[in-house]
């Protein structure tokens, strides 16, 4: 079966700034693809190109079997796009917003569908409330309800859980998994590592370039990072951060509470770097596995170095 999203060499420039640079991506049906990368890395731009809101300057690709350049009308029919910023009408009620979307899509049995969506949302009792008066978590649920109303084949979610509390985020992801189980394909951008870990596959983007793609384990393994964890007295740990960061072979030193994660791309070099400190009596060392976050920060730092190296 052909992939739901398949793009090759996708490029987008704003003025002389290349925002997305020869980007390749494949997403299979029913998959939840996590889309990660620092702010301004081009995630939103890629999503907008996929659903026809931006015209790519280079590259080609298809979305749901339609060419992204010429088939945007057909793509729009079968895609649900949830924008980063709440973009429903704040001066319409919850029901009126859903009703508007349902009418635009020309859904049969519109009122029943809207009522069902309201019920599933748990908003049936507040359906006459203005959308603008909802809290962040409810706005996000409403936006999701609006973009799945027409039962799309592909969901594009742009940082859907930014600024939403952990419980609401958990529920949101349960919903995403339920939708994917029903055959919907999901591309979701996020900054949260725990969310990335709930995706089937992830793609990591920095400076418009795809740096890594695969399952979480594959991406972590692919980063080639090895890690030590060290615990000790608070004051010693605080000083240790600086001391370790200066050593060759150490790429990252990050405190997690009382534990320090020390990582480097070359296992031997890292071992040599930490060796002098391993003798210290009040420090406890253990080999750790790098987290996804370690992998990402490492990928990004390396991308930074590459750019400087290229004189960019």
């Amino acid at each position: 079966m052909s992939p739901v999203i398949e793009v090759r060499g996708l490029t987008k420039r704003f003025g002389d700034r290349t925002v997305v640079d020869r980007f390749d991506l494949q997403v299979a049906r029913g998959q939840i693809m996590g889309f990660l990368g620092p702010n301004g890395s081009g995630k939103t731009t890629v999503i907008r190109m996929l659903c026809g809101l931006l015209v790519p300057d280079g590259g080609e690709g298809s979305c749901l079997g339609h060419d992204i350049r010429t088939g945007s009308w057909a793509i729009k029919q079968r895609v649900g796009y949830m924008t980063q910023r709440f973009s429903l009408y704040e001066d319409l009620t919850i029901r009126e917003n859903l009703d508007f979307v349902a009418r635009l899509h020309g859904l049969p049995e519109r009122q029943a569908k809207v009522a069902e969506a309201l019920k599933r949302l748990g908003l049936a009792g507040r359906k006459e409330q203005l959308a603008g008066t909802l809290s962040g978590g409810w706005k996000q649920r409403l936006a999701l309800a609006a973009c799945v109303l027409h039962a799309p084949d592909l969901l594009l979610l742009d940082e859907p859980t930014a600024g939403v509390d952990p419980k609401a985020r958990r529920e949101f992801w349960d919903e995403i998994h339920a939708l994917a189980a029903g055959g919907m394909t999901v591309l979701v951008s996020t900054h949260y590592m725990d969310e990335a870990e709930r995706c089937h596959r992830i793609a990591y983007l920095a400076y418009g370039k795809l740096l890594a793609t695969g399952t979480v384990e594959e991406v972590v393994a692919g980063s080639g990072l090895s890690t030590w964890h060290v615990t000790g007295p608070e004051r010693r740990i605080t000083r240790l951060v600086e001391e370790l960061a200066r050593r060759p072979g150490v790429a990252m030193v990050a405190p997690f509470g009382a534990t320090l994660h020390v990582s480097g791309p070359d296992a031997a070099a890292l071992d040599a770097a930490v060796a002098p400190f391993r003798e210290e009596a009040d420090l406890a060392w253990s080999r750790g596995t790098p987290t996804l976050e370690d992998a990402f920060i490492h990928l990004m730092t390396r991308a930074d170095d590459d750019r400087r190296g290229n004189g960019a």
Partner: protein
Amino acid sequence: MTRPRFAWHRLVAVVVKEFIQMRRDRLTFAMIVGIPIIQLLLFGYAINSDPRNLPTAVLSQDNSAFSRAIVTALQSSSYFRVTVLAQDAEELDAMLARGEVQFAVEIPTGFGRNLMRGDRPALLVMADATDPAATGNAVGALERVVDGAMAPLLDGPLAAFARGAPAVDLRIQRRYNPEGITQYNIVPGLMGTILTMTMIIMTALAMTRERERGTMENLLAMPVRPTEVMFGKLAPFILVGAIQVAVILGAATTLFGVPMVGEPGVLAVGLLVFIVANLAVGFLFSTIARNQLQAMQMSFFFFLPSILMSGFMFPFRGMPDWAQAIGEALPLTHFLRVVRGVMLKGNSLAEVWPDIWPMMVFLLGATVLAIARYRQTLD
């Protein structure tokens, strides 16, 4: 609690920020320079509250030295410009009704012969008085013009006429508004002006509001065509326009006693075209403006010449040709002729058609431009 003291550095901080923002907003800057220039040009060169060279049709059924002298005198006076020599009385009436001429002069058969006999023949001058301001001064000058034309001919045996009562019985008909009531002209005109203002501003905000509130992205991501958005946004305002029309028409007839001589149906046709034309302009602005302030500024930019050059505030024929040409391009100019024509003159659809189709052309142009400007992407 102590009240913080006024500090210059904070004032300067705000002033500097405001200047930076002002410089970024080019349209506001253009307004600051543009509005005074436009006003100066319009008031200085275009607007004339004492209109001259008013188009005049003459029907001369007499071929005598006297009738020729009258036509020559009209021609050489600064108020009248003889544009048409009519063949019969019906043609005169029709031209007045269509507003092609401001004055129609009828010189009856045997004018010269009767004058020589001392019979004081009638000289009929019909003025289109729908706009009293446009005809007032010309009518006032008429007697002087006619006397001046006659004077050189009244010598020898006719010299007696020159001393006594006027040799010609000058009859002036103020058509459509015999009492010269200003409200008859202003109130129907106000309908067009108010519609222009409200319709354009309301729709000008239509797309910019979507953009400013961030709802544009969602709208564009859904399957909807530009024409569907455009006419969907315009349709409710046709109703708003209809309500305004009802209010103004009600007030016009009850408070100001403005007559409704013609068919309301004819007026309704003109109104519909005019309202939609204005809505389309507003929508066009909203596809160009980046924010609501700019949309308001563009509306004002359009409204200013509309009100000054359409013949609403100042007589249309009082403006020089270039200003009239600009005026002809504005829908309000044509609508004013339609509304005055129907309400005061009782014009039929055929008679107002010359002013309906230009509004249709305008509507079509604005729609095509707006759809071309409408961005279906965020590029």
